[in-house]
């Protein structure tokens, strides 16, 4: 299997090289692909031929560049492991650095989900279009962490970078010793000579920087792997187990001031007037500065800044969207009643000819991201240069935003990406950096650290969109024969990429029908229609994006139809499934959970499946009726990713994804009143607590060559599997999240 992949790589062209840097050497690897007929790529700048440093060896040691940001999912560690596998270094011998914003770090895997072919379609036509979209993303230099792409993006690229560096170091050793390269081996950060003598990589750096890099490398077969697939200790684990990991919020500099902010809680609304006289008189307060949509306070201590910001009296302008939650739902309902579709990405059989009399209407609420570390950014506006320290997933967009605001060339805007205390999509936005930049522009030469109060973070969250689904279906002879899903949901693409990043992309918004149209079921009459309502409040990508609500719609309705048919939800899905790896996922979870076995009294189960971000995941949720309410008892999960790179982190991410999916499905929503979110903090928006958490059993499957990610795909099946368990337990099928609106949980 792995040799096959290596063969594919060898047929591509690579430009690889090395450059001398600060007495050391940096190894680059750049996948070079310029289809002569693609005019978009003719204008490649000279900087794009520049080498991409992934491996830096100098007097300080070995540094691996890990350009996909770490929000907590362990991306630094997994990227380092992929490089280290071929470089022959141990993870405790290296440092990781996210690197600067650079086009060269564009994400090669985002294209996989941006084409009108389901991920299960690996035909020539589908892959040709993925290649074309990939070329566009390369041209745009979309250096973005998201879409569960870190491993698929780096799986070959980072191992190649490690292999090029290793072979070049061996050539450097051959030149220094006069031995033949074939006599040399590498091990644990050193080239090993036939007599056992070891030359550390650092002692070879100067020579390696002088010679031509070795480009003719082949990736090792999986049988020779030391790291991939085996338990390893994440590179950040010692720091995170001892309270010594620094996050963006911990950034400190000499002369730094602390800032707080009050923004119009009617997101995007104006400041009509304000009175800061009380705030200005408070201890430690240095300055009050009006910014876009709000007021910032500069103080000598974060708490003093918070207190002063709260003391400002403000009259806020109206919300640029409907003030009441009921109006938001009405817009969606009207859209489904009367608007033209945004897209009909699936229309199998002849839905119009079917008497599809089983109907359903389901809802998914707005939800906030609420990572535990509130939004923050430190900005220093200097002479002809700006420095930004923050945790985010879009460093190049942030660089461009700051350049626009300050008039300083993007080349001189230095974005330093710091470790994030969670994100879940929150840090795919950079409004906090824009506001911190406005404050820092008022204090040139002074580093300004802006920290959002929790309540501010919640109030300003650009939420997951609400979604309204109407379904029709039919069953016959114990089988599901027809299913139509029509869903209306505000466009993330318009809000996030269009309004805030100025990237107005044509065509339908694929997130509206994500994980609806591309599910591997052969239902004879099967239609999916997406509707894009008029703009409402600001919305953004939330862990698993459209799949997070659409899997609830799709699988809850499919379970309802299967129940009407009198079929078993696992058996009927297996009968309908067209994709072999997906079927194996479902079979695995049935086997793990002893599906069909006898259950204790008061116990009930539900199953759901979702294919998102190319990863099929099936989950069985078991609940128990107790005197205190419904308790989550056990969950079984199977997921197909092609290759489990780090089994410990894999299990942790899957368990976390299930907890995320269940917790928000049960108790989390953002609702608007008077244009403002009604929820404030972790007492009214929390997800699961420890005592509510079920036992979660995880299995990663490797039945497929193609490697896909695991950060998001465990989320979507959790809510519909729980919904089915609730139906089995109570006879009542949930039609809207959060379920705690209708059911009593422990």
């Amino acid at each position, binding site marked *: 299997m792995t040799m096959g992949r290596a063969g594919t790589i060898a047929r591509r062209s690579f430009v690889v090289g090395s450059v001398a840097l600060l007495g050391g050497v940096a190894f680059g690897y750049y996948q070079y692909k310029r289809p002569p007929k693609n005019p978009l790529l003719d204008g490649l700048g000279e900087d794009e031929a520049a080498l991409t440093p992934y491996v830096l060896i100098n007097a300080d040691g070995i540094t691996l560049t890990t350009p996909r940001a770490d929000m907590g999912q362990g991306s630094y560690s997994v990227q380092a492991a992929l490089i280290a596998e071929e470089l022959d270094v141990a993870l405790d011998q290296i440092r990781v650095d996210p690197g600067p914003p650079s086009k060269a770090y564009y994400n090669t895997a985002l294209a996989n989900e941006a084409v009108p072919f389901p991920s299960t379609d690996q035909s020539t036509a589908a892959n040709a279009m993925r290649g074309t979209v990939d070329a566009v993303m390369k041209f745009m230099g979309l250096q973005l962490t998201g879409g569960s792409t870190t491993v698929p993006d780096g799986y070959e690229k980072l191992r190649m970078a490690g292999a090029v560096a290793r072979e070049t170091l061996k050539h450097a050793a051959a030149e220094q010793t006069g031995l033949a390269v074939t006599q040399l081996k590498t091990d644990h950060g050193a080239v090993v000579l036939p007599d056992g003598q070891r030359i550390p990589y650092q002692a070879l750096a100067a020579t390696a920087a002088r010679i031509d890099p070795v480009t003719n490398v082949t990736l090792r077969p999986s049988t020779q792997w030391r790291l991939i697939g085996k338990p390893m200790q994440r590179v950040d684990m010692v720091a995170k187990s001892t309270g010594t990991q620094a996050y963006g919020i911990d950034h400190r500099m000499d002369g730094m001031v602390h800032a707080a902010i009050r923004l119009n809680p009617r997101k995007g609304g104006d400041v009509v007037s304000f009175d800061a006289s009380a705030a200005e008189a408070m201890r430690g307060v240095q300055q009050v500065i009006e910014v876009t949509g709000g007021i910032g306070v500069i103080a000598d201590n974060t708490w003093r800044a918070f207190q002063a910001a709260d003391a400002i009296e403000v009259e806020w302008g109206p919300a640029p969207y409907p003030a009441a939650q009921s109006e938001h739902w009405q817009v969606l309902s009207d859209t489904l009643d009367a608007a033209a579709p945004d897209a009909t990405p699936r229309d199998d059989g002849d839905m119009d000819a079917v008497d599809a009399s089983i109907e359903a209407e389901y809802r998914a609420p707005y939800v906030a991201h609420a990572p535990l570390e509130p939004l923050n950014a430190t900005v220093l506006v200097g002479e002809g240069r700006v420095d930004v320290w923050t945790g985010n997933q879009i460093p190049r967009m942030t660089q461009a935003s700051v350049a626009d605001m300050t008039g300083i060339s993007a080349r001189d805007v230095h974005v330093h990406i710091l470790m994030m205390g969670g994100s879940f999509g929150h840090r795919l936005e950079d409004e906090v950096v824009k506001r911190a930049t406005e404050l820092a522009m008022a204090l040139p030469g002074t580093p300004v650290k802006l920290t959002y109060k929790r309540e501010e973070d919640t109030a300003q969250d650009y939420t997951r969109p609400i979604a309204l689904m109407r379904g029709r279906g039919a069953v016959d002879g114990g089988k599901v024969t027809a299913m139509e899903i029509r869903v209306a949901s505000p466009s993330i693409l318009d809000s996030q990429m269009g309004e805030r990043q100025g990237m107005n992309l044509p065509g339908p918004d694929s997130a509206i029908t994500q994980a609806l149209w591309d599910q591997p079921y052969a239902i004879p009459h099967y239609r999916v229609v997406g509707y894009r309502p008029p703009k409402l409040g600001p919305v953004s990508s939330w862990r698993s994006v459209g799949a997070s609500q659409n899997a609830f719609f799709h699988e809850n309705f499919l379970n309802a139809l299967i129940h009407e048919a009198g079929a078993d939800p696992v058996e009927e899905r297996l009968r309908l499934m067209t994709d072999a790896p997906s079927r194996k996922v479902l079979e695995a979870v049935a086997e793990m959970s002893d599906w069909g076995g006898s259950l204790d009294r008061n116990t009930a189960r539900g199953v759901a499946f979702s294919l998102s971000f190319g990863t099929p995941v099936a989950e069985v949720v078991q609940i128990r009726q107790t005197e205190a309410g419904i308790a989550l008892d056990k969950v079984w999960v199977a997921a197909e990713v092609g290759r489990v790179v780090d089994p410990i982190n894999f299990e942790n991410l899957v368990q976390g994804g299930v907890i995320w999916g269940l917790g928000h499905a049960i108790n989390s929503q953002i609702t608007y009143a008077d244009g403002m979110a009604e929820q404030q903090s972790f*007492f009214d928006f929390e997800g699961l607590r*420890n005592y509510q958490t079920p036992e979660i059993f995880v299995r990663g499957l490797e039945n497929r060559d193609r490697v896909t990610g695991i950060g998001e795909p465990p989320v979507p099946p959790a809510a519909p599997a729980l919904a089915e368990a609730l139906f089995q337990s109570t006879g009542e099928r949930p039609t809207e999240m959060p379920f705690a609106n209708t059911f009593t949980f422990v």
Partner: protein
Amino acid sequence: MLQLTVNGIVHQVDVEDDMPLLWVLRDEIGLNGPKYGCGVAACGACTVHVGGVAVRSCQTLVSDVDGPVMTIEGLGTPDEMHAVQAAWLEHQVAQCGYCQGGQMMQAADLLTQNPDPTDADIDEAMSGNLCRCGTYPRIRAAVKSAARSMRGA
């Protein structure tokens, strides 16, 4: 001037009586271990020990501090880990890790009071500490490991 002993070091701080301990530790003394998550004792990221007992430092006024303060940095260090920290490392509990300092301080307090906690004891003691990444299964396992290790020591 208020006098505070933090991780064995005496500090004189010139702050308002009603400044929460969290912000004295972070912005006046310069310790990053206690984290700001909510400011209203709803998440536990700021948990430290005062006089050997776990408290939410975001809701503890500095003038009410009546004993020595210990933060996660004082519990143990990368070179000399406390049994709880060693268990957290062994189980690779963290994802983003932002809540884990508070989780470990809460767990250390639990194990001081109750060397052999049941699952229900762990749930009760640890449920005020929110983890948005959902590392709870590993937190439970690590608390049990730490308990075994501390009883054996």
